[in-house]
């Protein structure tokens, strides 16, 4: 079956290592997203899976067979490129059928597949047009059609939505996800946009500087980031962090020498360890007067800025020397300089090692 396995795959350009020993196993029918900031090696990894880039060290298996020496066309893979790679001189129809023509698929079969794909993507009325006569979204669909028509069990996508406007991007996200589920294909999808990763993936792999940071289900990654980088990379706005000192004797934390915060939860951390506290913006809620304080911690803060977005409000304030953001539902008319209390559930707090950035509460995988 269409299982893709990466075994300690690395890519070197000269002496520079751009992908470092990436290992993972992508299951058949899975939507797997490679995500990370630009230059993290995610595209290179994808291109190594495609066979467009040579694998420096490590082993790639598709369906259990080693693929390192197999040319791209022998890997049972189709690919959607960032700029779609549509042949500008061919019609939509010829673009979609190019691969089938090259592989000398029977004419009648070609027609059948074309019809099905065109219907599935709603591009039947565009078949005689040239790519330059299409809008961005239509081109995207044609590129998808070309990948689907080959009926390969694995599809690779390299930032396919980055050339579309925000509204269309949201639309195509759901459409690609729907197609993948309908066809039951294995999808390996590269993006720098954590929102795409969160919304589309069955599992995601976060990469940074060619190293795997975390692999897991989007919500697991979101709720239990393996390290500080993943914590700050996921979520919009990202996770709030602040350096602090762990005081084991008092079972709590000292924030930049100013404030003591009792934290009953974490055990097994040495006294006086420098740590970094992390808290999602939506975990910080306003503490209303008269509310009981049990099981939640409170922080007095001074409002630095307010963004009212209509359905939610983002309130900014400093904790220690860091600017924090809290996301509250509804419209909150706070004023700059106003003092208020915010509360949070200690269970939602993440504590990271101050030196290595590793999450002290979770172990990876």
């Amino acid at each position, binding site marked *: 079956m269409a299982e893709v396995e990466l075994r300690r795959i690395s890519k070197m350009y000269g002496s520079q290592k751009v992908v470092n020993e990436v290992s993972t196993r992508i299951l058949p029918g899975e939507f797997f997203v490679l995500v990370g900031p630009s230059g993290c090696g995610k595209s290179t990894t994808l291109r190594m899976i495609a*066979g467009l880039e040579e694998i420096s060290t490590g082993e790639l298996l598709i369906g259990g067979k080693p693929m390192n020496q197999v040319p791209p066309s022998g890997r049972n*893979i189709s690919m959607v*490129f960032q*700029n779609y*790679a549509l*042949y*500008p*001189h061919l019609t939509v129809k010829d673009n979609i059928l*190019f*691969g089938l023509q090259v592989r000398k698929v029977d004419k009648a079969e070609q027609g059948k597949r074309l019809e099905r794909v065109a219907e599935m993507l709603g591009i039947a009325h565009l078949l005689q047009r040239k790519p330059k006569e299409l809008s961005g979204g239509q081109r995207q669909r044609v590129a998808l059609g070309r990948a689907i028509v080959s009926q390969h069990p694995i599809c690779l996508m390299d930032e396919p939505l980055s050339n579309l406007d925000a509204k269309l991007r949201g639309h195509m996200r759901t459409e690609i996800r729907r197609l993948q589920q309908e066809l039951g294909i294995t999808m390996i999808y590269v993006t720098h946009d954590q929102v795409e990763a969160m919304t589309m993936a069955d599992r995601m792999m976060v990469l940074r500087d060619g190293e795997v940071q975390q692999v897991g289900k989007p919500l697991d990654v979101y709720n239990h980031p393996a390290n500080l980088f993943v914590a700050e990379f996921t979520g919009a706005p990202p996770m709030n962090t602040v350096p602090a000192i762990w005081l084991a004797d008092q079972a709590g934390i000292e924030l930049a020498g100013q404030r003591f915060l009792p934290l009953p939860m974490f055990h097994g951390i040495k006294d006086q360890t420098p740590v970094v506290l992390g808290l999602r913006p939506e975990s910080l809620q306003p503490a209303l007067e008269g509310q009981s304080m049990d099981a939640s911690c409170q922080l007095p803060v001074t409002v630095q800025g307010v963004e009212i977005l209509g359905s939610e409000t983002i309130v900014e304030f400093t904790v220690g020397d860091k600017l924090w953001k809290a996301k509250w539902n509804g419209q909150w008319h706070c004023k700059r300089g106003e003092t208020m209390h915010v509360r949070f559930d200690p269970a939602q707090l993440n504590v990271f090692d101050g030196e290595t950035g590793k999450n002290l509460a979770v172990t990876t995988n």
Partner: protein
Amino acid sequence: MGELRAKWKVNMYAWLLLLPSLIFLLLFTFYPVIQTFILSFHQADLGSPEPFFNGIDNYKQMVEDEVFWKVLTNNIWFAIGTVPTSVALALAMALFANKAIRGKSFIRTAYFYPTVVPMIAVANIWLFIYTPEYGALSHVMEWFGKGDMNWLGDQKNVMWAMIFMVIWKEAGYFMIFYLAGLQNISQELYESASMEGASSWTVFRRITFPLLMPTTMFVSIIAFTNSFKLVDHLVIMTKGGPDNASNLLLYYIYETAFSFWDQGMASALTIVMVVLLLLVAAFQFFGMDKKIHYN
């Protein structure tokens, strides 16, 4: 009223911007063309102190002139011999120079080098190569035990010798256009084709060549006009001989005008050549243009 004035103002502005180049065009292109056209209906040779109108006599004489037909057929063979070969060779060289991993710039320079050399120098170099007995080519022929050949002195060989030289001279120039064209083709297209497992011949036939068509079109028009325009080598090498075997239309016009001093006839010949070039360019442009994909 105001609208008309505004329009006039805009137009005036455009004309003023065009004026400098227009003056030169009028003076050195349009005026001589019209003068040539008028002169072609006059007798203007050394025998007539003032040019006088003689209707289509020049054209009549031309049709009866054996040399004219000889020169015209020569030129057509010259075009057939040089245009497709030099264009195809240019494409092949560009593909190779683009793919080459080592010595890319050396290969490009080597291919482009004949273009940089002036035609007069090229003619002199090849004059030496083609020289019987002690020429370079004769030496090579001797090694292979072949007899000596007088390339430029033989009516059968002289045209081939010229065609070969011009291909050598021109292909590198056309290669530059193809190289630029190749670099305009997105690498993603080739990667996409390789995902499908297309052979390199399929990739060339279905992707590279069609996408280079605008370049091919442009280059072949240039090559064709060059085959009528390039006559410098004749001055050095053969002067059109032996017995007009290597003579070309433009050189014949030059001879008629400035050796025989028959300016009326030379004008008529010029008009014929211009019309011929226009016809071919029009065919290439309107006939083939529709089939070409432009980005």
